[in-house]
């Protein structure tokens, strides 16, 4: 069980990571997301022991590292997959994967599992990006790490490749039965691959929860915006369970059950996602004006300004085509609870 307590890291006088706490289960994959500069790579480097920490403790199994008694990386039995692959250019794939191994059995296992049999004797310069990343993964897993850190492993690859490789890596991690922390800036990746997601903002962990929880009940507006397109709609909410037993939130464009956050009550902001709404260009009584349209292939994303001033984004199927400047009717159509924030 990887346990991180009150971890803080400073670069000079700047605190880059502030009192981070987390604990990983046996084969759990934790996605760490956040905007650039939020400290994700720093956390990984600290967990690997590549940079010193200023406060706190990192412990796993039989070792615990503190600022006063740091444990060097080679003693932590941690595996790391780097953004730029970090394959040793002067060694072949086979030599890379077996770098410190005496017994090649495990290496052979991972090489065949990841489809790299035919590349054993090639040098990294001859491989494609995807192949390199697979080799990096095989190398990490062949050394039987106690936990794995992945630093934006797919960001140097083409979009088409990302998708398939994503699942391969996840499968491999699960098969290896090791906990992993995976840093990414891609929300889609964060939502789909991880068992839990941690959202970082300027070195502070704003929320650490399942993807669904982060998406539908974000702990803060930052998280809400980060997890996907978020619009905030003026609403009113009565938090008295006696007078409002169904937790109904009342808005100008419909009512919906609400999950109040931070004791929201009275005038509140309702978090709506683009697919919680519908847009009808032919409605007899339009309540908003279309600002712009974005064609997305399977769908269209509309930015609409309601007559009451709220700015919303609506996603509808591609067959629905309304031009900017036209009037349309926006309706709240979802029935599952939405998050309610205090103003």
């Amino acid at each position, binding site marked *: 069980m990887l346990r991180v307590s009150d971890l803080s890291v400073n670069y000079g006088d700047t605190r880059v990571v502030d009192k981070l706490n987390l604990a990983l289960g046996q084969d759990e994959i934790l996605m760490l997301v956040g905007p650039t500069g939020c400290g994700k790579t720093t956390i990984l480097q600290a967990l690997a022991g590549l940079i010193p920490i200023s406060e706190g403790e990192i412990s796993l199994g039989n070792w615990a590292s503190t600022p006063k008694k740091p444990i060097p990386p*080679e003693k932590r039995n941690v595996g790391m997959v780097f953004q730029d692959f970090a394959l040793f250019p002067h060694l072949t794939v086979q030599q890379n994967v077996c770098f410190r191994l005496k017994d090649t059995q495990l290496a052979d296992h991972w090489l065949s599992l990841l489809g790299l049999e035919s590349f054993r004797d090639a040098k990294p310069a001859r491989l494609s990006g995807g192949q390199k990343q697979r080799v990096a993964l095989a*190398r990490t897993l062949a050394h039987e790490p106690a936990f794995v850190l992945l630093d934006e492993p797919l960001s140097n690859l083409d979009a088409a490749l990302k998708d398939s490789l994503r699942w391969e890596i996840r499968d491999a991690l699960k098969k290896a039965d090791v906990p992993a922390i995976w840093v990414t800036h891609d929300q889609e990746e964060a939502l789909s691959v991880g068992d839990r997601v941690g959202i970082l903002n300027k070195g502070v962990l704003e929320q650490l929860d399942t993807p669904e929880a982060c998406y539908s009940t974000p702990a803060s507006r930052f998280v809400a915006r980060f997890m996907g397109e978020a619009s905030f709609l003026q609403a009113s909410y009565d938090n008295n369970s006696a007078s409002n037993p169904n937790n109904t939130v009342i808005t100008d464009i419909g009512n919906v059950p609400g999950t109040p956050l931070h004791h929201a009550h009275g005038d509140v902001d309702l978090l709506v996602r683009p697919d919680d709404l519908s847009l009808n260009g032919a409605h007899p009584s339009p309540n908003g004006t279309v600002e712009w349209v974005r064609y997305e292939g399977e769908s269209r994303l509309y930015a609409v300004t309601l007559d009451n001033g709220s700015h919303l984004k609506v996603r509808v199927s591609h067959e629905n085509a309304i031009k900017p400047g036209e009037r349309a009717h926006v309706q709240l159509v979802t029935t599952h609870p939405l998050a309610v924030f205090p103003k």
Partner: protein
Amino acid sequence: MTNWPKSYPLALLIALMALLPVGVLFSLAQDSAQFFDTHNLRVLGNTLALMTLTIIGSVLIGVPLALFTAYVQMPFKRFWLIVLAAPLALPSYIGAFAMYFSFGRGGEIENVLGVSTPPISGLWGSALVMSLYTYPFVMMTTRSSLLSLDASLVNAARTLGLSLGASLWRVVLPRVVNSIAAGALLAALYALSDFGTPAIMGLDTFTRVIFVEYNAFGLSQAAMLSLQLMVIVGLILFIESRISGATERPGRHLSLFPAPWQRNLMLFATMPIVFMSIVLPLAIFTLWLVREGTGGFELSYAWNSAHASFIAAIVAVLLAIPVAHAAIAGKAGRLMERITYFGFGVPGIVMGTALVYVGLQLPAFYQTLSLLVMAYVLRFIPLAVGSVRTTAENIDSGLVKAARVLGASPREAFIRITLPLTLRGMIAGAALVFLEAMRELPATLMLGPTGFETLATYMWRVYEAGYFGRAAVPGLLLVLLSGVGLILMLSGERKAQFTVTEDKGS
């Protein structure tokens, strides 16, 4: 990770060793009679004049050639590059030898072709020779800088109405001034420390006078003059340290495709330089070889040159490794690296003077090969350091981290990852030291064990005795062995650009 990089203590030791000759000179000069007089003034004037003319000459030749070899696309580009860089393989005194005895009344050109030519000697002769053999420094440093400049700036200038020539002058050259200066300063250092060329040309520069003083009066007077020379050298090194290359984001560099006749005209224009610096010496030496045979020459001279230089090259690279890594690690390390550069600025004759004194104090070392190797190492270690450092800097830092994370201790990561990847740099550095040590003359004359004759010292011996025809065999062998070293160095340089850095983006 660690507070004090592990390379520091060793690097500090080596840096202190590099300061040893200067310390020795100071203590020697205490006994000396004169400090400064009119004779000194004349010598100072000659030395500064030679240095200045060499700088001008090497820049005038080197910069256009750099533009030519960097930007003009032509067949056999690599071949021309090697030919134009080839003067690096010849010691300047071979050129001085050849030119002194070819030109002028009674010279070989007159003997063979019947054409009378003006003599090449004195200040202008020395400056010509030094320029012809140091321009490759300017050419190579400028060229590598030109290759890293993005062509889009020149293209932008041309779309704005500037001609190609004007664009090169106004948009390209100002951005490579630092590299030109770096190469020119290196040429200046060579001009200051060269012994053979001013001696043969009959120009009284510091190095020549130090040699005479050493022979006539002994160590103290030589030490005093040496210290005066070191002041100039120190100034040059100081200026050099102030120059830092501006780094731009590398983009695709400019490529010019001139018409065939233009290309041939440009090649033709480079021919006089190639002729004077390479063809003439080789021709003269071959002529002498044919005429006089190999009398008096022993193969052991070549063996001595080669194995002393080889040992020096290995030792220099081994000592360069901690210094190079210290230089990357931090500010104190960079300072230590700078201190080792001092040795390079100490002319061979001065190094010899200082170390003879050291030898007399430590009789076990006096007149031994170790003392001579030490002189070579102290003088040339900066060449190895520079080469190892640039290669080490280019290694992706993630590689060492990856090794650590896979369980390798810092030592194992260094040996299995860092060292093999800097191998190219180490080989190039060793080749460079080998090349320089092979052709070293004054320190070898003073420090070599009794009976230890190298190719360079034998050439000097026959020159002094007047049997210059006998210089043919050692001269040609020197060129051959230097050529091998040069090829090693150039090939190491090219490969280093391809294999060391992680392939980003494929």
